Each structure stands twice: as C-alpha cells, then as structure tokens.
C-alpha cells in the first residue's frame, strides 16, 4: 500500500482528528469536572484578583486555539500534500471521475 493510497490518507486524517478531539474533550471536561467536584480548589486565589478557576478557564480557551492551530498546520502541510498525491494517482489509474451535480463556480 503506497503512502498516497486512499486508505492511508483516510487513516492518517482520522487519527489526527480523533486525537485532537480527545485532547480538547479531556481538557474541557477536566475543567468541567473540577467545577463540578472541587469548587474550593478553583476558588484558590493564585494572584491578587485571579482565582485558579479563572486562570484555568482562560487556559481552556488558549488550548482550543492551540489545538485548532496545530490541526490547520498539519492539514496545510501533510493532509493537503497527500490529497494532491491522491488526486494524481486517481487520474492515472483511470478511476471514474464523479461529475459535479450543480456545483457552483
């Protein structure tokens, strides 16, 4: 199986997508579970005017940004390159090309 086969591209895409989704859910539900089960801990003041809860909450937003950025970086470099390979091999092997059904220009 070449690295540009549909199966390989598909498997790589879902591996990255699922890992990042699991990471996002772990971070977010970690935060939610702390809100649910350990309120006093989140109420700890880490600096004047800043509780641990607010710090972690802002960090969840930053993590969401970071994971989104990681995905875009990965997709723009690796995924798009694999898709280009896939497109050319598909043509070379004479796979049927599906026609656009009313696709816009």
């Amino acid at each position, binding site marked *: 199986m070449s690295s540009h086969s549909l199966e390989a591209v598909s498997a790589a895409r879902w591996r990255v997508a699922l890992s990042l989704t699991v990471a*996002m859910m772990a971070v*977010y539900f970690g935060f939610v579970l702390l809100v*649910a089960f350990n*309120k006093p801990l989140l109420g700890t003041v880490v600096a004047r005017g800043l509780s641990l809860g607010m710090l972690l*909450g802002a960090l969840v937003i930053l993590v*969401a940004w970071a994971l989104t950025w990681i995905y875009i970086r990965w997709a723009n470099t690796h995924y798009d390159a694999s898709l280009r390979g896939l497109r050319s091999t598909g043509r070379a092997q004479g796979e049927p090309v*599906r026609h656009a*059904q009313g*696709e816009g220009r």
Partner: protein
Amino acid sequence: MTSLGEPNALAITFFILFIASSLGITIWASRKTTTTDHFYAAGRSVTALQNGLALAGDYMSAASFLGIAGLVAVSGFDGLIYSIGWLVGWPVVMFLIAEPLRNLGRYTFADVLAARLRQTPIRIAASIGALAVITFYLIAQMVGAGNLIRLLFGLPYEAAVVIVGAVMLAYVLFGGMLATTWVQIVKAVLLLGGATLLAGLVLARFSFNPLALFAEASDMYGAEVLSPGRLVTDPIDAVSLGLALMLGTAGLPHILMRFYTVRDAKTARTSVGYATAFIGFFYLLTFVLGFGAMVIIGREAITAVDAGGNMAAPLLAEGVGGTPFLGFISAVAFATILAVVAGLTLSGAATLSHDLWVSVFRGDKADQREQLVVARSATVLLAIVSILLGITFKGQNVAYMVGLAFAIAASANFPALVLSIFWRGLTTRGAQFSMISGTVSALVLIFLSPTIQVDVLGNADAWFPLRNPGIVSISLSFAVAIGVSLMWPAASEAKRFDELERQLHLGVEHVD
C-alpha cells in the same frame, strides 16, 4: 440615572444607518441571486476570512453578548462556564465535521447523510431535528429582540418583533445567502469592534490590568465572585450542560450551512480557524465586560433594570461612554439579533424547500425556478411563524430556550452526522431512529426538567432531576444509532460508504 428605556436619538440613528446599509447590500446581492446555488450558498464565492467573520456573526448571538455579560455581572465566575463551553465546540467542528461536510453536501447538513443513506427517510428525520432546533433558537432571538428594543428604544414589544421579522424577511427573500453573509460580516465587525472598545474603556480605569478589575470585584462583592458558585450545583448537571454546549455547536443547521458558501474544503478549514480566533477573543472580552459591569455599574443597578441581568453590557456602555456609546452598543446588539434571525430563517427555508419539498416530495425533479419559488415561499412562511412565536412567547426566559436549542442540536443532529462521516456500519434505519430519538428525548426531558416544571409551571418537584438533558439524550441518540445499525446491518449502504470515501477527502472532482 440611566436613559435606558427612553427613545435614544443616537441609538435610532445608528440603527437606521445599519438597516439602510444592510438593505443596500441586499439590493446588490439580489441582482446576483438567480440560482439555488446563489440563494443557499452565495454562489460558493465567500472567502475564508469573510466566512470566518460570518460564522462568528452567526454564532455570537444576543445570548453571547448580552446574556453572558449579564450572567458574569450577576453571578461572577459561573457565567464564564458558558463562554468556555461555547468556544470549545469550534475545534470539534473543525476536526470532525467542516471538511467532510463541504465535500459531501450541497446546501444542508442532511445532504451528507442523504449522500450515503436512503434519501427520503433520512431527509424527513433530519428535517424534524433541524426545524426543532431552528424553532427554539428563533423563539429565543425574537423574544430577546422584543425585550431589547422595548428597553432600548421605548417601542412596544409587539412592534419590535414585527420590525425584526420584516427587515430580516427583506434580507433573506431578496438577497439570499449572499446578503445574509454580508449582514453577518458587518455585524461581526461591529460587535467585535464595539466589545473591544467597551472593554478598552473599562480597562482604562484599571491602568489596563484586568487583574486589578477582578480584584476590585472581589473586594466589593467577596472572593466568591471569582470561584464556582450556585449556578452549577449538581456535578452531573455540570457535565450534562458541558456536553450540550460543546457538541451542540456541531449540530446547528445555520452554522453547518455556512461551509457550503466557500469554494472548497481547504477554504472551509481556514474559515473555521478565523472563526475560532474571533469567537475566542470575544469570549475572553466577556470576562472584562461582565466584571466591569459588576464593578462600575453595580449588581443592584443592573438587576433593577432587568432581573436576568441582560442589560449589563448596554448599561456599562452608558457608564463608561455616556449616551452616545449607549446608542452605539444598543444598535450593535439589535443588529446582532437581526443577523442571527436572518441566518436561522435561511437555514429553515433550505430545510423546508431543499430537503423536504425538492428532494422528498418532488424526487429531485424540480427546476431552478420552482426551487427558488419554494425557497422564497418557505422564507415568508418562516418569517410569519417566527413573528407569531415571538409574540406568543413574550415574557419567557430567553436563556433556557437557547440552552434547549443547543441540547436538541447535540442530541438530534450531531450523533447521526458524525457517525455518517466516520462509521462505515451506519445504516439508514440507525441514523433515522437516532435523529428522532435524540429530538424527542431532548424535548421530553426538558419538559420534565426543573427548568420547565419548577421555574415555569411552578410545580414543587420535577420528574427528571437534571436541568440540561444532554448527558442522557446525547448518549441515547448515539446508542440508538449504533444499536439499530448493528441489529439490522445493510451491506449495500456500507458499500456506498466505501464509494464515497474518495469524495469525502477530495470533494466533487471536475473533469478539466
């Protein structure tokens, strides 16, 4: 003390300027809107940055701007749980949904399911879920609009609802997706700019140190404003709300529809990146706006104007920028509602005409002219229905309606959509039962929850203990989809999944 509730000449001027410029956009867009591709998908001409702003515009509704600022001003930290929950849905949309959705569908998320499953039963089930979400979301926006205009401009509630309905109808009817997109973009820029300016004016009083502001809030109202409090009392309820907020985003029909307005999947991907950046920035601002209102205006003054605290942001604008800034922020808040209502109506019209009329009743045999006539008739129908619902539900609590819409979206649409993209074994029957059981269980459990039974109906007890049904209804919907599909497998549908795998990654390939 405050000029809220009196006709504010500047607010009305800003508002008329917004309406006039957006109707100008509509006239421009109407010249281009001649086919269904234009009406539903803006001719696939929207760029990544434009779509990112439009997604942010569609998402940052009055619930985000007025609701969260008010919630933080009144309850402190607890309001931030909503800010965070509503943002983390976006990475999920990015990783799991955006690109396959763009590659497999044409106008609605139901297209993705219909591409690999039997079209008729799937579209009917998907339409029921989509219309339930849209209806509750619309009610929340209309009720919010009515109250807001009554408070801000001194107009009667009913008149306000009719004005919103009529202006929105003009955008969607004549300008379709192109006008709706540009209205969202203008509104998103105004909202982000207005909120940034407001936060800047607040922080200027604390030498641009947010911690000094939070410290002042904790000195005035006690350290507990910075820690989790009474809003989330039950742990399971907290997780349930978290699930609905996170997964609901990936099931909102009007958000999913935006991915069809761009050229290809790569542009869709980039646009989610922009949207996540804008929305995250906006939600970080809500930390400052909420605590700013708490400190500068004071909790008592905020709840005196509106018990739910919804007027915290406009009051804060008046406090730091005087009547002119109040006028500007009020007009921005109104533009926000108007734009979201337009986006919702358009996705409702696409469901009624594209999914139900053209695909189910006419078996894909309707020509462009007929499709456009049906789409525009559906728009008029939805505008009338939303005006009537807005008037009927006068005085209802807006927040629970939006929560309801998210819970239904997460239970009805998300499981079937994500499984249809990921899982070869999903069958028509599995998806159909999942969407129906998700919609029905979410609706029934909300009706039996303390939110309706205790808060609205005034009963002493509720049959269902949780305020948000997410944890039960989302799990049920997934379990039904997987269970039914395994019980009655369909080999031909699994084969169809393999056939579509190439299109899922590469999109519809043109012959050059």
